[in-house]
């Protein structure tokens, strides 16, 4: 019998903060005291709070240790695991508060979250099918095995499940089309080619709860009459692939995959295909081409994959998070499932919350929650109490929403109306030091680079838009560029072959819609107020605020800052490379972003 269960986060975020070293020391400290066998150490999936990693959650004590360092471990082992006294200084402490928080339910980051899809992530051993079954896993499958295909489809339709991968198409409808399509063979495909920069929800689900995907795909197979499926996963996610492979083997061993599943006569074979690094393969027809071993270029639809998909057979494609919702619907029942969410957007959505918020990480929130609640309550507000400027939702296909949209409810239709999209779930908060023109340029350079080149509007159009944006950020923009951008954007949206091109202009359109003044400032005043576009600003030290602490002079690589100790310093704009290191270092906020050529007004 184990005395305690120690769930160490083994997901990428915590690994990058050093959770592997923490685990090694933990093993050693326990072994040295001869008590290793009383403790079960699990490299668990992601509990979401990447900001404070590495994390160890202790059961049954319900203690959440965070921001750990290998050096902290001996103390925790000795004081807590041997002497039974919780080590308070390694618990979570909210900023500006003296009170420590002991467990999930007390930590503000988790208070507005609803764990449906992520219910197992970080809480079970993802490499154990038994733990999945103990948590109610595969119960939905047994229910589905007793149902008729039509009834399963109907249940998913009633639940109001919509695709979590981008466009939000009703999943039940997609299943119905595939069920009705004539074909001697049908396929289920799970799109795990999560390529959006700033999105890692699907990977976390695959790493933290791989059986949920298998169960979801099995149910989908029953619903549309398919006996074979593919998971198409990025090769950049080696841990996800490894966990999934292990889960498939276990499920086969338990008779939950393979021939005659649970004696029902239902057969199902599940394959994994590794992607090879092409963003466009997240588009369904390109993804199918890639599984077939070809270049991943999209083809026109119709025929939709539901009629003519993989090797021309009817194929149902959903993404990881969508499949992860399916067992939940069958287990709870459609009506219970649909209690979470809004009229037209049911259930929860997982977001990868990042950027300039205090609490970055993986969050699952009910549909209909406001952006403000996500940024301020879950995310803990903007770093260093700076001003919120915008939130970017939906990655390169999505858009930027400004402060006055903070009260917008997060559901498919509200977001689309505001010019963003639900997308796959990247949510990046930005403060006053993010330049919106540069951000638009950034996204467009991404989509331009990833455009497969098959259709002209996307291949050439995005290139022309990118050139214009580069010109504007370099201070060579003209006012008529703004109209040209809008014209190009609307043609590209209307005439591109696939979703990549059709949505590529969105980041430009939304920034033009909500932040046109920044574009105008770049063009008319040759000024970048955020201090990003290097030709369009200078740094100067405000003599009123500078206390001459010399901290900035130490980080300046080009010795551009001069001044006596305790006297206001000065920046030599001729030498300054605008790397910004001094701004990050200055505690007085004395280094200001100014218009080019105006340094005499500030520094005297």
């Amino acid at each position, binding site marked *: 019998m184990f005395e305690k269960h120690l769930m160490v986060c083994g997901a990428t975020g915590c690994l*990058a903060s050093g959770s592997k070293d923490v685990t090694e020391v933990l093993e050693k400290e326990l072994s040295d005291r001869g008590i290793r066998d009383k403790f079960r150490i699990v490299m668990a999936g992601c509990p979401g709070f990447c900001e404070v*990693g590495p994390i160890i959650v202790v059961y049954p004590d319900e203690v959440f240790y965070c921001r750990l360092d290998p050096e902290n471990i001996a103390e925790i082992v000795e004081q807590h695991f041997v002497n039974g006294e919780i080590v308070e200084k390694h618990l979570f402490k909210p900023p500006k508060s003296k009170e420590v928080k002991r467990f999930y339910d007390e930590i503000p980051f988790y208070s507005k979250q609803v764990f449906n899809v992520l219910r197992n992530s970080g809480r079970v051993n993802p490499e154990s099918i038994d733990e999945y079954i103990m948590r109610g896993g595969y119960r939905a499958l047994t229910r589905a095995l007793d149902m008729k295909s039509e009834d399963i489809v109907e249940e998913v339709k009633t639940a109001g499940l919509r695709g979590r991968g981008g466009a939000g198409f009703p999943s039940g409808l997609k299943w119905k089309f595939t069920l009705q399509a004539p074909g001697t063979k049908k396929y289920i495909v799970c799109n795990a080619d999560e390529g959006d920069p700033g999105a890692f929800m699907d990977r976390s689900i695959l790493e933290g709860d791989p059986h949920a995907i298998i169960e979801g795909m099995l149910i989908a197979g029953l619903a549309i009459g398919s006996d074979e499926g593919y998971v198409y996963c990025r090769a950049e996610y080696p841990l996800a692939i490894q966990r999934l492979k292990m889960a498939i083997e276990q499920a086969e061993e338990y008779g939950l995959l393979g021939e005659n599943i649970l004696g029902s006569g239902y057969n199902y074979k599940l394959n994994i295909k*590794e992607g090879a690094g092409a963003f466009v393969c997240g588009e369904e027809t390109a993804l199918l081409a890639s599984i077939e071993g070809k270049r991943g270029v999209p083809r026109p639809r119709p025929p939709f994959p539901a009629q003519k998909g993989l090797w021309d057979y009817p194929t149902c494609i959903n993404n990881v998070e969508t499949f992860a919702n399916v067992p939940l619907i069958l287990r709870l029942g459609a009506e219970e499932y649909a209690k979470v969410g809004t009229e037209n957007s049911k259930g929860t959505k997982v977001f990868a919350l990042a*950027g300039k918020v205090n609490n970055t990480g993986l969050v699952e929130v009910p549909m209909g929650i406001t952006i403000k609640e996500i940024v301020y309550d879950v995310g803990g507000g903007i770093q260093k109490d700076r001003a919120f400027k915008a939130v970017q939702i939906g990655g390169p296909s999505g858009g930027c929403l400004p402060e006055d949209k903070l009260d917008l409810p997060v559901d498919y239709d509200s977001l689309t109306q505001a010019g963003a999209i639900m997308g796959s779930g990247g949510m990046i908060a930005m403060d006053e030091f993010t330049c919106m023109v540069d951000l638009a340029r950034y996204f467009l350079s991404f989509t331009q680079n990833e455009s497969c080149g098959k259709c002209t509007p996307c291949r050439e159009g995005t290139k022309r838009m990118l050139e214009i944006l580069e010109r504007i950020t370099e201070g060579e923009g003209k006012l008529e560029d703004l109209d040209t951008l809008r014209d190009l954007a609307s043609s590209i949206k209307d005439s591109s072959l696939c979703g990549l091109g059709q949505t590529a202009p969105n980041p430009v359109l939304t920034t033009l819609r909500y932040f046109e003044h920044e574009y105008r400032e770049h063009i008319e005043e040759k000024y970048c107020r955020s201090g990003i576009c290097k030709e369009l600003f200078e740094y100067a030290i405000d003599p009123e605020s500078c206390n001459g602490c010399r901290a900035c002079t130490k980080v300046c690589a080009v010795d551009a800052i001069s001044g006596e100790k305790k006297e206001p310093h000065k920046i030599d704009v001729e030498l300054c490379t605008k790397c*910004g290191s001094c701004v990050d270092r200055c505690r007085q906020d004395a280094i200001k972003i100014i218009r080019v050529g105006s340094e005499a007004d500030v520094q005297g």
Partner: protein
Amino acid sequence: MGEEATALPEIDLDKVDEVVDPFLGKKGIMIPVLQNLQEEYGYLPRPAMEKAARKLKIPVSKMYGVATFYAQFHLAPRGRNIIRVCKGTACHIQGASKISDRITEILGITTGETTEDYRFTLEEVACIGACALAPVMTINDNPHGRLTPDRIQEILDSYE
């Protein structure tokens, strides 16, 4: 294939048989074959691709088309250490370009290039999903997070 370096090591083409044979007669295998070839050689040597294409009865042009389409495949040998600077959105707004600028300053190579002594190859990656630690880079499979330009030299020095 312009990116091939001049002095290439001898290539043992017998390994192509080991890689390709298990796939013969199956469908949708081009990408796994290329992935396994690359794992074997570290990149995709032209003679190996030609031999594999012959064995699979696929035009080599088609195989080349697939190999050049996907970012994962490399037609020239790469360095012993692969630096991947994350250019995801979170890293971008937290200053990822300052990180790659600094690496370029130190190593004298830009994205996609390899140092002459094959010690480093510099690449960009769209997102490695460690957004909380932005800006991030990985060297081989080791993630390095919360980077600042002044830490780069020391990190690079720790790779031989």
